[in-house]
């Protein structure tokens, strides 16, 4: 490996020096030995040997030169030269470094997100083999898996190492002074085996613990261990209390273990053989599985399909209607943001391209100024390659500096991403690592070539005689179409980005302007901890709920209170197939509706108007139902709907009921979606995840403390958490939307600024170059206005050409964005017109300054300079 030795020699010169000294000194000693053997005295022999060898230092140097190859040394020399010549032009260097820092920084920042979210496997051993397994049902959007079926699938399949599952509940831990809400996960057997993670301390659940009647046991998170047990190892065997029961801690998970999310603090075993877990229609697990080595996703899917069709023969009801849905766990987590992230990445790449183009134009201006220097170097015998290499070396030095600064920017990326989009999946995994550093270096190299190659080739193309002849300064400079073309390209890319950003901003605006059909302002939402076990006594739960709701409503400043299973306006997909008691022809579409579960006070609290009938009269034989106008019109002839009975088959959770009222349509399932046919089940069941809604007269956040105090008084054994205005929840639900809109807008503004700087710089340079020509014309009687118009014209024509090309690119970009737009079409004329107006105005301003400067030339002074 000759190159390896050479590199080592370059980087470890002292070692090379030592070796050489040793080798040559040995030679002298051997010679002295021989001379002594031939009869010389010792000092005489030494002297003769040294004499014969000559100057040791000089010999070492000559030999060393052989060990450091010339090519590498030339590169180093180029870099040294580059640094020196750049130091002499600090303004130029700083401009380029900052431009590149911006370009590379933004690019690396987005790449760090893509790397963490999309490219890296999930943080489990062989995380790409993990699957999400759901059950698809014909008549329901229920995706959870029944515990019995999970066990069946696990036992009967041949393609998976194992299937497990979990469900979550927030529960109060009661061993401390105050109840503390902890996010708990109830996990099916084999949970940790499937994930491939072992506790950092202690052990996994035993088979007894995973089955009904076995000993109690919990695993806790690293952060809970540190917070509650000071991170001491004797935590094993200590207990936490939930409800009436104490649970001994049997293990502590490693800090990196965040499954299913980073908030989870306690994992309980959930026995699949509890008596109530044995009903095949009761479903609650989110199931996960792990592929056997060498098995593909498709094979696993087919295999589970076969298993399920066998089960369907054995248990026709309900298994005949159920089929497994298998996808990669990673895909299920990040699939939704893939497009957003790639769009952002494309945008920052365009930004970097603009930066490169900008620098290319700057370099060309600079190299024209250095024509003399280049000519001299040619005349001294430098080869074209070496002159070009020297110029590239300059760019590379700048790019490295820019990449260094850009890396700092990328380090801050995770902070920005976290503040803009808390809900982005895997966001906590975004951090700086060696891949980002390498990516930055690659960026530096690519920008060097992209921005440096053309100027380097062009500036060295002229033959020697031509350059020297051109050095005459009185000549009128030729046209500079390439430089202007580069500026036009920048404008084009800027228009592309601005067009995309404009569409997203308009969507965002439209989303804010939409009338949701309910009033999200002045509503405080909160959760109160409870457990699924408590839902066993629905009567007590209802009493408790009523007491809480009334208690909160009695607070001053509170208008009304309600509870609901889902938050209005936050995207949610709970849909059911419903049977009506009105006969429907086979040809008619199925009755399909969004299902919501809310207290009777919900409609008043959310300011949803009652259009007909009455709100949830309780005490009737059937559960009271409310439908929205769309449901009534679509399926039941409008107001006739009242009094009809609706049933849901095959779903043990949703009772049948009678329609008592019709309310206005609301965008319950997400602000960006049109209202859907919706059925509201009125009721006040108290279960984990229930949202409490408090309508206030003033700022909802101001009531936080009062609400908390009141609830502590009413329910001292429960914890209250997530006290947040409804508007925050809604805006969090659109975090990804907001992230891409804000980032793209920032990129677009940067791009336009860069393009304007490019336009300004190039035009200033042209003006400078043509000073004498302008002076001459002015001296011959040209009007200053004509001069201004001429240069302004050059600038505007360039910008217009760029914009025209940019609009075409923007149309392509808009097509990529089409799925992310709301209330605005991808070919929105107003947006395009706005973008054009902005870009042309700004580029006009950028051209005006150099144009005016050109007209201010004092003819006599400029001409006398010659």
């Amino acid at each position, binding site marked *: 490996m*000759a190159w390896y*030795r*050479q590199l080592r020699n370059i980087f470890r010169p002292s070692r090379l020096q030592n*070796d*050489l000294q*040793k*080798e*040559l000194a*040995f*030679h002298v*000693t*051997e*010679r002295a*030995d*021989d001379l002594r053997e031939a009869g010389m005295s010792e000092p005489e022999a030494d002297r003769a040997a040294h004499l*014969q*060898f*000559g100057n040791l230092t000089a*010999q070492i140097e*000559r*030999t*060393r*030169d*052989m*060990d450091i*190859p010339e090519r590498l040394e030339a590169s180093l020399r180029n870099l040294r030269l580059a640094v020196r010549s750049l130091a002499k032009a600090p303004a130029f260097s700083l401009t380029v470094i900052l431009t590149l820092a911006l370009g590379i920084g933004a690019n690396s920042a987005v790449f760090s997100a893509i790397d963490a979210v999309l490219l890296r496997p999930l943080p489990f051993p062989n995380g790409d083999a993990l699957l999400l397994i759901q059950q698809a049902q014909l008549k329901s959007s229920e995706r959870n898996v029944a515990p019995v079926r999970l066990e069946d699938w696990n036992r009967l399949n041949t393609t998976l190492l194992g299937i497990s599952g979990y469900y979550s509940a927030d529960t109060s831990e009661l061993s401390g002074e105050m109840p503390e809400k902890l996010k708990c996960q109830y996990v099916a057997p084999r949970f940790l085996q499937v994930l491939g993670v072992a506790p950092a301390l202690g052990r996994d659940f035993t088979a007894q613990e995973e089955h009904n009647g076995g000993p109690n046991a919990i695993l806790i998170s690293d952060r809970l261990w540190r917070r509650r047990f000071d991170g001491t190892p004797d935590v094993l065997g200590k207990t936490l209390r939930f409800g009436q029961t104490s649970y001994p801690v049997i293990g502590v998970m490693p800090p990196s273990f965040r499954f299913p999310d980073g908030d989870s603090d306690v994992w309980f075993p959930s026995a699949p053989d509890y008596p109530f877990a044995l009903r095949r229609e009761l479903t609650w697990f989110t199931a996960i599985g792990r592929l056997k080595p060498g098995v593909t996703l498709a094979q696993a899917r087919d295999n589970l399909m076969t298993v399920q069709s066998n089960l369907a023969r054995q248990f026709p009801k309900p298994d005949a209607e159920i089929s497994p849905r298998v996808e990669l766990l990673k895909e299920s987590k990040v699939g939704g943001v893939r497009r957003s992230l790639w769009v952002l990445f494309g945008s920052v790449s365009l930004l970097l391209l603009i930066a490169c183009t900008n620098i290319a134009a700057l370099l060309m201006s600079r190299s024209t100024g250095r024509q003399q220097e280049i000519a001299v170097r040619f005349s001294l015998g430098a080869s074209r390659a070496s002159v070009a290499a020297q110029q590239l070396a300059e760019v590379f030095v700048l790019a490295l500096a820019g990449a260094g600064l850009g890396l700092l920017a990328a380090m801050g990326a995770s902070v920005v991403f976290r503040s803009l989009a808390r809900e982005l999946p895997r966001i906590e995994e975004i951090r700086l690592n060696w891949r980002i550093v390498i990516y930055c270096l690659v960026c530096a190299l690519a920008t060097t070539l992209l921005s440096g190659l053309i100027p380097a080739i062009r500036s060295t193309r002229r033959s020697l005689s031509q350059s020297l002849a051109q050095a005459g300064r009185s000549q009128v400079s030729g046209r500079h179409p390439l430089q202007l073309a580069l500026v036009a390209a920048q404008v084009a890319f800027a228009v592309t980005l601005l067009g995309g950003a404009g569409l997203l901003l308009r969507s965002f605006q439209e989303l804010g302007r939409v009338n949701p059909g309910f009033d999200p302002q002045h509503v405080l939402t909160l959760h109160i901890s409870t457990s699924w076990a408590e839902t066993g006594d629905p009567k007590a739960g209802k009493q408790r709920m009523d007491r809480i709701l009334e208690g909160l409503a009695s607070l001053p400043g509170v208008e009304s209170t309600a509870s609901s299973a889902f938050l209005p306006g936050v995207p949610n997909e709970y849909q059911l197939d419903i049977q009506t008691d009105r006969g429907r022809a086979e040809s008619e579409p199925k009755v399909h509706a969004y299902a919501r579960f809310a207290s009777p006070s919900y409609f008043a609290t959310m300011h949803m108007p009652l259009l007909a009938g009455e709100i949830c009269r309780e005490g009737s034989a059937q559960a009271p139902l409310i439908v929205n106008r769309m449901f009534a019109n679509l399926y039941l002839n409008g107001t006739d709907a009242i009094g009809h009975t609706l049933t849901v088959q095959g779903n043990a959770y949703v009772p049948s009921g009678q329609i008592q009222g019709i309310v206005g349509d609301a965008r319950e399932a997400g602000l960006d979606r049109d209202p859907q046919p919706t059925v509201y089940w009125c009721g006040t069941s108290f279960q984990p995840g229930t949202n409490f809604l408090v309508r206030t007269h003033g700022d909802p956040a101001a009531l936080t403390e009062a609400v908390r105090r009141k609830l502590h008084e009413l329910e001292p054994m429960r914890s209250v958490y997530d006290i947040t205005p409804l508007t925050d929840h809604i805006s969090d639900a659109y975090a990804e939307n907001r992230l891409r809109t804000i980032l793209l807008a920032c990129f677009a503004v940067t791009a336009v600024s860069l393009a304007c700087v490019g336009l300004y710089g190039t035009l200033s340079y042209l003006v400078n170059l043509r000073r004498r020509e302008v002076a001459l014309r002015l001296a011959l009687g040209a009007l200053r206005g004509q001069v201004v118009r001429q240069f302004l014209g050059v600038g505007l024509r360039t910008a217009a050409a760029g914009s025209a090309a940019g609009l075409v690119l923007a149309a392509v970009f808009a097509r990529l964005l089409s799925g992310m737009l709301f209330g605005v079409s991808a070919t929105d004329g107003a947006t395009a017109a706005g973008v054009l107006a902005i870009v042309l105005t700004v580029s006009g301003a950028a051209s005006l300054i150099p144009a005016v400067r050109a007209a201010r030339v004092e003819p006599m002074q400029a001409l006398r300079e010659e």
Partner: protein
Amino acid sequence: MGEKKNDILQGTLVLLILRTLASGKRMHGYAITARIHEVSEELLRVEEGSLYPALHRMEQEGWIKAEWGKTEKKREARFYSLTALGRKRLQQEEESWRRLTEGVARVIRYA
């Protein structure tokens, strides 16, 4: 250094070193000089000033390889040996030397 020694013609040093190492034994720089001196019956003397640059350049070319070792007198020395590439190079060098001497001989004879 009174007596006049025969300096080695530029370019032939590589050939001499390759040939000397072709015996297969690894040798240090001093041994190579001594060997050339001895085999040429003291006609040829290798200048230290050319020997070590040549050795290091040949090492970079990959014709010879070097490693540290102990001499019989237990001194640390850098030993050189021929590589496969060097063996090939030796053939080329010998061939071109043969042609050079043949050419020179003809010129001396007939010119």
